[in-house]
């Protein structure tokens, strides 16, 4: 097994963990920031056959540097197609995109996420950017992966606003609402660990803890009950090679993984 690094920051860990979730020969709908880093890392390691699609129209690029925006020219550098949002969104609605990444300000036990407002919608305490492509990713991609910070204010009983659908109010709810069958949240990655959703109940459950994190940390940082299975994996820390790729090749300026 590859040599493991001892020195790495939380975002580097998240990028590596997210990257490993992307199977080779699959497609991913990529948003700004860590998702880009994770997808580029996957292509450079275990998933050279990963197809990257950007909402603004960049399809299958060979990115030379990390884009700042999902619409800048880096997203269609040596792309197989420089197309449009209508094209990207249509092929994802039609079922061509397997993975999608999302961030969130709040999430509930069913994986419903809020990136719109804290407080009342009309007169919000905090106004966030809104859906952007998040609702589209969460509606269309076969499997969505969330990357977010975890604490009691973020892992909440009820989100202030359902911007993007998780499993709504439970099993079958997505299909009843008319959302594409079989789609929905696949994993949630936080600074503490990795979560999945129970097949039966569609409720969030712990899948793995990051090195040095305890089940108590997980409980203390969620306002809702997270199912803890008998056996809990520990995530693999970044290898030296992964860190080298992240720091030297993918994000040398540290715009996403920090410095």
């Amino acid at each position, binding site marked *: 097994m590859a040599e493991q690094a001892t020195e790495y920051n939380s975002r580097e860990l998240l990028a590596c963990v997210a990257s490993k979730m992307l199977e080779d020969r699959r497609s991913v709908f990529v948003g*700004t*920031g860590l998702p880009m880093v994770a997808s580029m890392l996957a292509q450079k390691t275990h998933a050279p056959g990963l197809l990257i699609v950007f*909402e*603004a*129209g*960049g399809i299958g690029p060979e990115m*030379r*540097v990390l884009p*700042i*925006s*999902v*619409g*800048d*020219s880096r*997203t*269609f550098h040596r792309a197989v197609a*420089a*197309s*449009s*949002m*209508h094209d990207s*969104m249509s092929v994802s*609605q039609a079922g061509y995109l397997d993975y999608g990444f999302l961030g969130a300000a709040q999430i509930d036990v069913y994986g*419903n996420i809020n990136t*719109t407002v804290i407080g009342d*919608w009309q*007169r*919000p*305490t*905090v*106004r*966030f*950017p*809104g*859906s*952007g*492509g998040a*609702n*589209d990713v969460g*509606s*269309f991609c076969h499997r969505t992966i969330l990357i977010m910070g975890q604490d009691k204010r973020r892992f909440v009983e009820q989100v202030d*606003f*359902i*911007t*993007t*659908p998780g499993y*709504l109010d439970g099993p079958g*709810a*997505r299909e*009843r*609402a*008319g*959302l*594409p069958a079989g789609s929905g949240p696949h994993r949630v990655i936080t600074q503490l660990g990795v979560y999945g959703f129970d097949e039966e109940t569609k409720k969030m459950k712990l899948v793995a803890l990051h090195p040095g994190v305890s089940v108590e940390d997980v409980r203390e940082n969620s306002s809702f009950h997270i199912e803890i299975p008998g056996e809990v994996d520990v995530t693999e820390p970044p290898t030296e090679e992964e860190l080298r790729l992240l720091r030297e090749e993918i994000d040398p*300026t*540290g*715009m*996403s993984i*920090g*410095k």
Partner: protein
Amino acid sequence: MEILLEGEGELVGWHDPDENRKWILENKPRDLRDKQMSVEDAVSQFVHDGDFIAFGGFGHIRVPMALLYEIIRQKRRNLIMAGKTAVHDIDVLIGAGCVSKVEVAYAFGHELRGLSPAGRRAVESGECEVVAEISNAGYQWRFLAGMMGVPFVVSRNMLGTDTLKKSACKVVKDPWSGKPVCLIPAAYPDVAMFHVPRCDVYGNAQIDGILVEDFELARAARRVLVTTEEIVDNDVIRAKPQNTVIPFFLVDAVCEVPYGAHPTEMPYLYFFDEEHIGEWLRLSRTREGVEEYLDRYVHGVEDFEEYLALVGGVAKLNTLKRVEQYRERVQAPWLDED
């Protein structure tokens, strides 16, 4: 096809298809005529208080900033803005007090650069009202319906969420599958503005790289204003008709404005001016800072060329070109604030 749900959001920019056809018949000339004019004239003639406006490009890419600054200079008010991944554009316009309503797909954020102090302040204080929510694909398809001249298009996003509840969309049962589907109403902006790399005097505009939502937006909008890096001969357009994204009969004004997208990116030509965007983000933390910014870069300059000199002139523009072309590494204040 019973209606299962109706969004509570305000329906902005929708017209009865027949009403819009009549408007197009009476207001859009079909012949090749010289539409060159100054940015001042384009804005004074075609952008009015209360208009529903949209900018081409995406976030910080290909935004027609010269037109945007002129809108501020001419003190347009109560504009309704299409928050179609509106980032730097909407933030500055809101800061300048031009916008009173927004339909939001994405706004009040600068992607990696963080949230928008000015935009958020206005919304959280109620000065600027969010009248409806929607998603990026949803907005894109509002323009698709407008381009097609039909009242709505069908989609499978937004279902089951508050985004839909606060949108202007409706949910019905698809008569074929029997499943609920979302109906997204058409959007016909009063004015859509674009910055392109090349355009002829008639308005035949070509775009290099991804089109984002511009193809549909230009066809859905009632008025289309185009600023261009350079005005080219009509023969240049006709030599490569496949590259024409916006044909002349859609266009009302053509303004030649080199670097007209600064500080946003113009693919292949120049990169984001992160220093300038950073200055805006820093100053816009306070109302005073916003005033300072606008006084310096909008009200304090005679024209766009004076603005370009002020932001760094030829040296800065050459740097942005080298960065865009991978010949120099990007410098960004927000990269050092870690």
